[in-house]
């Protein structure tokens, strides 16, 4: 295998001339469109060694950010693409003598209908990320929850004071949890009225004083992004302690899962 016998694949997209001009990817490598004649499709790629990119956490974080920048730039130019996850490589096949570009082209031809279908489904749409949390202290107003003998702690031993504090915290958690469940159902239903798809995702940022309400990726038409913002503003109005993180828009990473996950074979 030579040093550049594989292709690092960033995304699949309609073959538009010039869409990748001037765009760089991992470690500043220039990316290009590898068109597949007769399909109208192309892959956003750069040449690579047939081995996954490996490194420390900081280095991988930088690579992922570089990949994301490249994909986003091309996505903004083209309007729709299927982004790949980190480290998707297609290697040459020495047995058949096919180059990496031929292998990738053959696969795209085989999957042409499903790729085209998915591209159409995601065209004109973006992904938004929403994370909603409740500040427990704000929910209970900073006062002890009913039934918590907070004032009884005076004169108790340190161990008993600790246990009473734990009990108070548990009740606050319970109260916030019940409110979070009710809010989750309402907000999710309202989001589904303006988003085409909602997929739950783990919280990326949550402090020990917060209870999670909803963390999800939304597939949204570009023209409906403001409507999502309006739903979230409405949810926050009059609800002290409700924290909302609203990120995006970016390419629909969370919704491009077919057919890439089922068929792509990293080198």
């Amino acid at each position, binding site marked *: 295998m030579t040093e550049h016998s594989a292709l690092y694949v960033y995304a699949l997209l309609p073959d538009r001339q010039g869409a990748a001009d001037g765009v760089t990817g991992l470690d500043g490598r220039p990316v290009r469109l590898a068109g597949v004649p007769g399909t109208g499709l192309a892959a956003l790629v750069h040449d690579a060694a047939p081995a996954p990119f490996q490194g420390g956490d900081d280095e991988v974080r930088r690579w992922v950010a570089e990949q994301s920048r490249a994909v986003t730039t091309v996505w903004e130019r083209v309007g729709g693409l299927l982004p790949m996850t980190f480290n998707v490589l297609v290697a040459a096949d020495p047995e058949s003598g096919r180059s990496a570009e031929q292998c990738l082209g053959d696969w795209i031809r085989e999957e042409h209908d499903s790729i085209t279908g998915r591209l159409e489904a995601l065209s004109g749409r973006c992904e938004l990320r929403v994370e909603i949390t409740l500040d427990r202290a704000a929910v209970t107003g900073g006062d002890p929850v009913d039934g918590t003998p907070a004032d009884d702690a005076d004169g*108790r*031993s*340190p*161990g*008993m004071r*600790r*246990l009473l504090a*734990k*009990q108070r915290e*548990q009740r606050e958690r319970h109260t916030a949890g019940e409110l979070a469940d009710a809010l989750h159902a309402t907000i999710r239903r309202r989001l589904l009225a303006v988003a085409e798809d909602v*997929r*739950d995702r*783990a*919280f990326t940022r*949550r402090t*020990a004083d917060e209870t*999670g309400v909803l963390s999800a990726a939304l597939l949204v038409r570009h023209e409906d992004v403001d409507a999502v913002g309006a739903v979230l503003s409405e949810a926050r109005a009059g609800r002290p302690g409700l924290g909302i993180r609203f990120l995006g828009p970016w390419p629909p990473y969370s919704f491009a*899962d077919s057919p890439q*996950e089922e068929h792509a074979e990293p080198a």
Partner: protein
Amino acid sequence: MPLTVDEKSLKHGVLSLVVTLVEVIQEALDRQAMRRIDGGDLNPEEAERLADALLELDEAMEQIKEDHGIVDSVADLHRGLDDVVDDVVDKLINPRRWAEEAGR
């Protein structure tokens, strides 16, 4: 592919996991103790003794975390465990998620 193991990192990882699990047990002990105290199973002296013993355990755990520099990793693991539990509970009570998982 060769697996490279950093012994120090492995030790910290295992220790963080053990301490996190002890903390989970500790929380169960705290809840059980409160239940006993609230239920009147213990007289005031017994209750104070139990509460102080749990405080000592708590202080010992904090000391171990400080000594081994695993305060943050235990907090991360604990949060991760909470998320796993949330996810499992959500799947159990929300049948729509089964279909989503099966479809992937």
